[in-house]
């Protein structure tokens, strides 16, 4: 299919397009057909496993590094939280052992007892 002049924006474009037509192709070499037919009988070349494609190899390595990093960071965070909770519990327990709090609790218990008697 040749393009009509209407499809060109200007004469230069048309001239360049026509110049392309002067490009000479090549002739297939002697015996091309025979060699092609012979290739039909060749075993299908074994393609390298997808894993060894360089891009995939790098992507896999990067994924492993990121996964290890995220996993390590998450584990460290959990350990920190666990330690914090333990420390808080110990601290709370120690505080609860102090007398003031026990006295307060005794007062509240006494007040509850009084309220119960008034209701009766």
């Amino acid at each position, binding site marked *: *299919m*040749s*393009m009509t002049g209407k499809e*060109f*924006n200007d004469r*230069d*474009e048309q*001239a*360049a*397009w*026509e*110049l*392309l*037509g*002067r*490009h*000479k*192709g*090549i*002739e*297939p*070499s002697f015996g*091309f*057909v025979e*060699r*092609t*037919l012979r*290739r*039909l009988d060749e075993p299908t070349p074994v393609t390298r496993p997808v894993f060894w494609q*360089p891009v995939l190899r790098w992507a896999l390595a990067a994924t492993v590094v990121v996964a290890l990093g995220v996993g390590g960071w998450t584990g460290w965070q959990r350990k920190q939280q666990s330690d914090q909770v333990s420390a808080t519990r110990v601290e709370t327990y120690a505080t609860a052992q102090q007398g003031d709090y026990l006295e307060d609790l005794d007062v509240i218990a006494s007040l509850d007892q009084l309220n119960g008697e008034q209701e009766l």
Partner: protein
Amino acid sequence: MTSSDSDAALMLRVKDGDRDAFRQLVERHQRAVVNTIYRSISDAWEAEDLAQHVFVQVFRSAPRYKPTAKFTTWLFTIVHNTILNEYRRRSRHAAESLDAMAHPQDADSAGWEPADTRTPDPARDVAERELQERIQEAISRLPDAQRTAVILCRFEGLSYEEIAEVLHCSVSAVKSLLHRARETLKEQLRCYY
């Protein structure tokens, strides 16, 4: 019976493993396939090797061929995919690619001669050779889709619809690709027309 019908008929025979039908298809389309690849990759020996690979693909894919599509459209789709794979391979081996792209004249030095280049005038011969190289270089430098569109339109005479089918895009996209390619070629070949 049109040429296209004939191709389809041959392909139906190839489906049944008929090598004689396959030989006829290769003989009929070898020049178009070799040249389409050569104009894309600028390497005559590699173009032949890839062209053979394309035909082997045709033979092996024959069981999946449906005569609803025009044979040449199907064939050039395989050619286009093969060229894209070759570009991907070359981009992985950058040195090899640059070497091949930088010396499109290697085709001549390796014993290849473009068809009908013999001229009695040496000066004219040199000028003609330079022109061939510049055109080849200008085509090679186009982006993949533009290059294929130009080659199929200008050299293989495919319609916009057929090119759209090969490139898996719309007809308007093909027109756009060709427009941009013509703009680029106009600039690159300005001093030769």
